[in-house]
């Protein structure tokens, strides 16, 4: 995924581009995410997904529109705390933090990367199984989970894998 400097530079350039070109930029910088979404799942899935979203919000005006006026903090963590990330939405921007922030509106505790991907993106029966098998547990506002589900799928659609 892009470094912070590359991201901000490309982000500035992308502002003058049409929507389709912006989506092309998102695709170009999101190959690690495409790999995770199309099968080669690793423990880095969460970080790669949130990083991909952050990048897409920076590059794509159209994708950014999805979070206009949206403020919420999500914490994602495995039950043992070995993986922890936070996504902070504030005034049309998203920041990813590689830690579980103490204050959140929605917290998702998951067993492993597979359970999380299934929960967020799958249309198959195992998305339900994730909850039933206690693979994923949600605290806080469920509406945020639905919105994040849309954001993840909208991104995978833009990447041509949804």
């Amino acid at each position: 995924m892009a470094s912070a400097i590359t991201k901000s530079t490309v982000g500035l350039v992308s502002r003058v581009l049409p929507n389709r070109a912006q989506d092309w930029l998102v695709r170009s910088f999101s190959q690690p995410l495409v790999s995770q979404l199309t099968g080669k799942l690793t423990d880095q899935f969460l970080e790669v997904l949130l990083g991909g979203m952050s990048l897409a919000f920076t590059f794509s005006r159209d994708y950014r529109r999805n979070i206009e006026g949206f403020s919420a903090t999500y914490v994602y963590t495995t039950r043992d705390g070995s993986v922890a990330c936070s996504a902070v939405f504030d005034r049309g921007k998203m920041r990813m933090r590689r830690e579980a922030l103490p204050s959140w509106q929605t917290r998702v505790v998951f067993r492993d990367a597979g359970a999380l991907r299934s929960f967020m993106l799958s249309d198959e029966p195992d998305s339900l199984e994730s909850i039933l098998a206690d693979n994923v547990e949600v605290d806080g506002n469920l509406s945020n989970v639905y919105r994040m589900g849309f954001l993840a799928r909208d991104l995978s659609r833009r990447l041509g894998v949804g």
Partner: protein
Amino acid sequence: MSAITLGDLSLKNIKLSPPLAALREAYFRAAPEVCPERPALVTKYSLEAGLFQRDRITSLDKARLYRKVLENRQPVVWHTRARQRTRDGMEEFSFQDTSPFAGSTTARFKGVPIYPEFLGLGLWPELWTISKRKANPYYLAEADAKTLNFDVFPHWMQHNITELARSRGSDQDRQRMRLLQMLLFFIASKPNCISHTIPDFSRAVREGLRRVIEDAQARHAQAGDPAAKEFYQAVVEVLEGIITYARRLAEAAASISARETDPVRKTALEEIARIYRRVPEQPAESFREGLTTIWLCWVAIHLENPDAGLSLGRLDQILYDLYRRDIDAGRLTVEQAVELLGYLWLKIGDHVPAVPNAGEQLFGGTGSNQAITVGGVDEEGRDAVNDLTYVMLRATELMMLRDPNLNARYHPEVHSDAYLRRLCEANLNTGATPALHNDRAVIQALTASGHTLAQARDYGVVGCVEPGSNGRMYSHSGALLVNLPAALELALFNGRHRRFGMDRLISIETGDPSSFATFAQFREAFRQQAVWLLDQAIATNDWLGRIHQQSYPTPVLSALFEGPMEKGRDLIDGGALLNASGIAIIGMADVADSLTAIETLVYQEGRINFAGLRDALRNDFKGHEPLLTRLRDPQRTPRFGNDHPQADASATWLLRTLDEAVQGRRNYRGGNYRVGYWTMTNHAGFGRLMGATPNGRKAGENFSSGITPNSGVTPFLTSALRSVAELPPECVTNGMAFNLKFTPEDGERGRVLDNFVAAVKGYFDATTMQPAGGMEIQFNVTSHRDFLEAVQDPSRYDQLLVRVSGYTAYFKDLNPQMQKEIIERTEYRLSTGEAVSYRAVPLAKGAAHG
């Protein structure tokens, strides 16, 4: 009242007219389409009125909102386009609408209304995929998806019922919500709706809405209580909104008529315009006007209340005078009456509930469960069956729709054999409808739960099978669905559940069953766990009910109900004449059989101890095959439904125990709690989630439906009928669904029908144990072979109607687990009364494991 003038009760010579048949064909071709109109307008006017900033929303706030929506929504007189599924997606097709009933629940021909105030946001993740999902896809245009994503859903993130309940609840409330989210213990439907009830249409039809408005204005002038004043003002607002909507439809019809060149269509449009200028504002003067009044009120009620279990009640009683007058005056023929009802039935079915993908996997295939009730006795106990009862039966036979869900009432001491025969014949013809209710047993149940005798006699059926006094009982009969086998699990594992591990205490510790010296001790532990489970469910329902009181009053429904006008109070605040909350118990037969099995094998025979039994359950009977065989053999282990005293006593004990557990409990509206035994598709859904049970049911297998004995248990129809008939109706005040499957036999039809009637009469007859007889019974008359073929080739059976456990559904829409359950229900030959052997169907993919 003996009001039968029809020569042929079957009306078999009446067929669908070509225009109605064509519209019905278009209806079946059409895929459901998500309609953003309602959520977009509701959101817009909520923003304008500042409702998102309010902690408490009043009836008047809501009334003003709905009036605006009714004044501004698209007045669709006739639909012209719909979408159909093709190999490549959804393709538009056009058709010619000919309905005499203008207006629609959504702006689509077959729409999916969205209620973001409830669970509408659950569709958010699927906005780009819902048109292509495997289970029951809905068409959603890209522009409409964007409307929902940008203009609707974001505003409701903090303001839907679930989030309001979470954010306003105590820690204890949130703890119970956690239990709810585990999906294994109970389902509370208030995050999705209240709905389940029957409005009172009689006043709107008889007097017209203008008269009701004048009444509300007079009461407003006299009321001293500011809250009551505000409520009456709310009634005026919503009824003016409905009248305006009707006038706008009239103007639209007139406008289309002016451009129409086809003289037949032009006349039809002019007639719509004429009628819609009159009703529902004025009293209905014809049968068609009466139907129009009901239809327009129905549209407005669904604008306010989600499409789940709202029911229309005793339409053959409400409309009979208008029908009779028209027939007698020569203004209407029986054929025309059937035709009008056929069109209305299509309108009633013009919407499909929004079910997210995860919901489809568990509970897919449900319609809106809009019950209509026909027949029965009147408030004085006299025969109320009339010609219109038969006209409605014929319309139902011809249309063969999932919605409305027809229910027929029969009183063994009052009604003729000819009437019962006709009801059975309709079941043979449709394969699935109507459900039959025994007035004697239902009236006994309702009087036991606080209805007066007259109120009980005037009951209608809500949603699936739940009885409640017509137009005056705010019952929310589907408030809670309780997974009873979860209580058994908690008793077996001392308050723990296998899904969540033995180190996590879920409920209360009732002791390690291995230490129980007697079966009575185990049964007491189970009772305590069941009471605990009911306590959690009831507390959740009351808490959610209070959130509804703060944020979701229902002035439209309240204006069309008996009680709120007299009390000056919205339904949500206890305005109805009668109030209740309903509990549906899932897995009754499995628990009853499990208790009997434990009593027999552990305590009477000492065949196995609890450690061994739990080991068998944990391993899904692997390594315990002889035990499994023994448990599944009804000749060796008593099972409910086999006319075995011990097994039937287990079931009766369960019913009495659960009824006692809710006695004296008052809900947030001051009503009581009622227990019923109908399961919709939840016996398959919960079954899929639960591990093996002591009755020999393996992990993930379906529980038995409704109050029906387990499949394969009962080789003889009469045994099954007797076992269920002897259950105490006074403990089943929220209704029951007893599902039977008959083989559609070749041979002389009259003889088949004789046997059908004899079976039902036998079930409804008084027994020594139970003078009222069996309460309810419903049928599928389709063979195993046809069902199996329908699984293989759904397109050939796209209109195959089935009874699930309460409501009717299209077989093709059900999830695989539910299809399997229906296929494997015990099937009886009416000619012999014996069960037909069948081959087992492989368990659906994704089933649970122990």
